[in-house]
């Protein structure tokens, strides 16, 4: 019997179902699929559901509801099919988001390249040529954690927090890329800048990206970014999109 998936309570806030001990695409798909199924069945006492990289979280007030019944029901559901073989969500899109690498707009590019053991030009080539998938939204509204980059980019977070990166910042750590929603402190390295807005509260669809979407970050010059910023009011930041399936 495998150790996974693991079911655990989270403080008094809910129940976490973890599909793997480290990031993997099948575990990420399993987490998304389990969440979709619990949502579709509308479980009693579950006030909301979410996913992180390889786990599904069910919000349950454990001061009011004892977790045993929900855990028993989860065990039945988990054994009913192979969650690791689940399909990706339907209606996924590919986003090509123009990005300035390095300069004062991506001040930690050289530092990140050094941590990855490559020169800055190679770093730009590798990252701008990669296609990554939105694994989860988190930390701030609509903010994508996306991966996985090649193993070279399995670089750790910094020891101390950067005080603030701007909205639209592209940051890297542990084979993943994030575009920041809002100005924010971070332990990840700031390597590039986009004009993409993850969160558009004034819009009918405040959250731009969905887990399962794919992202590319083609390189542009600072002048091009300036031009995009002048023209764009949608929040897309010059991004092109394509329906994947």
């Amino acid at each position, binding site marked *: 019997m495998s150790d996974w998936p693991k079911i*655990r*309570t*989270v*403080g*008094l*806030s*809910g129940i*976490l179902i*973890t599909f793997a*001990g*480290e*990031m993997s695409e099948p575990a990420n798909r399993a987490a998304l699929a389990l*969440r979709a199924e619990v949502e579709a069945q509308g479980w009693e006492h579950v*006030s*909301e*559901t*979410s*996913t*992180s*990289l*390889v*786990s599904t*979280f069910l*919000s349950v007030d*454990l*001061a009011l509801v004892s977790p045993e019944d929900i855990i028993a029901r989860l065990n039945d559901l988990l054994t009913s099919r192979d969650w690791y073989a689940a399909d990706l969500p339907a209606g996924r899109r590919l986003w090509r988001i123009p990005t300035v690498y390095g300069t004062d707009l991506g001040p930690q590019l050289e530092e990140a390249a050094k941590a990855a053991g490559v020169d800055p030009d190679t770093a730009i080539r590798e990252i701008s040529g990669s296609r990554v998938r939105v694994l*989860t*939204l*988190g*930390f*701030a*509204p*609509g*903010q994508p*954690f996306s991966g996985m980059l090649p193993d070279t980019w399995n670089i*750790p*977070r*910094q*020891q*101390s*927090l950067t005080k603030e990166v701007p909205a639209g910042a592209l940051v890297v750590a*542990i084979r993943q890329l994030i575009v920041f*929603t*809002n100005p*924010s402190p971070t*332990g990840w390295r700031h390597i590039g800048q986009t004009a993409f807005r993850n*969160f558009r*509260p004034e819009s009918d669809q*405040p*959250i731009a990206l969905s887990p399962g979407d794919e992202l590319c970050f083609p390189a542009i010059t600072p002048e091009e970014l300036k031009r995009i910023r002048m023209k764009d009011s949608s929040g897309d930041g010059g991004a092109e999109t394509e329906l994947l399936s």
Partner: protein
Amino acid sequence: MSGTLTIHQAGPQMSVQDFGRPGYRASGMTRGGAADPLALHEGAILLGQEPTLAAIEMVGAGGTFTADTNLRIALTGAPMKATLDGTPLTWNASHPMPAGARLVIGGATSGTYGYLHIGGGIDLPLQMGARSTHFGAGLGGALEAGDTLPVGADTGSGTGVALPRDDRFDGGCLRVVTSVQTDRFDDETIARFTATAFARDPRANRRGVRMEPPGEGFFATDQLSILSEVITIGDIQITGDGAPFVLMCECQTTGGYPRIGTVIPADLPRVAQAPTGAEIRFDFIPLEEAIAIQQRAAADLKALPGRCYPLVRDPHNIRDLLSYQLVGGVVSALADPFEKET
């Protein structure tokens, strides 16, 4: 809308708050809302209205306000020096505020977050289901001098009642349950963590409150490469420098820094209110004990209206006072309701 409240001077990070926006966790947004939700309940009880109405949250210091209509107000949370046209106002109580009168709220004498409640509530348009400012998400923003806020229709009446204050404004011991990453810390680290007297750091906001250790920090094994995982309000996150951050209502939904445990919901107002420098300790308790404490806290909240007392002991009000206490006084969080039958 039945009138407006004008802000003539505002302390830092003053904002409109209600219970926030649950339901957006999957999109990466925590619920936000009042840093001290208990204070929202207290304000609602003092004004005899729904706790879901929006109030003004004041951080460390208040501001100066006038209204163009007669208002009922209540002041709760961290006690601050307040006057109305120069007359001192009792904190944790409700008062009439006539049109044109000048309400001046000064610095907090203990605690951090004070609240100004208005009869009818602050009637801003709903945005994604709430009126709360969420600084982290960029919804709403800090209130400033010159801002005018719409006030909702006040369907209640009466002022001049107060609630006794509790001890959540001075730091103290926070009760903690284990979380999914507690086992990333060895026994020795946990023992040292619970034996440490921390000081509430000046670095604190609605995202989280840093607790400064007197000596060296606390570290998990393999601290910097832990997979990002779900975060819940109350989680005690250990960042790179080894100091704990207790995460609050506007915290992130996921994070990669390890969490040593989770402060129980009943003690979160104490986290929010601890003033800079206050001593903070953490005490791990079993889940069953935490559940019992939460249930007691819920019963205490239900019984809170019965603890109201009139501000002025006018003889005409004494009869009302007695009947009020009879209603509330029979409710005890610990008592068995069936024993009360005879």
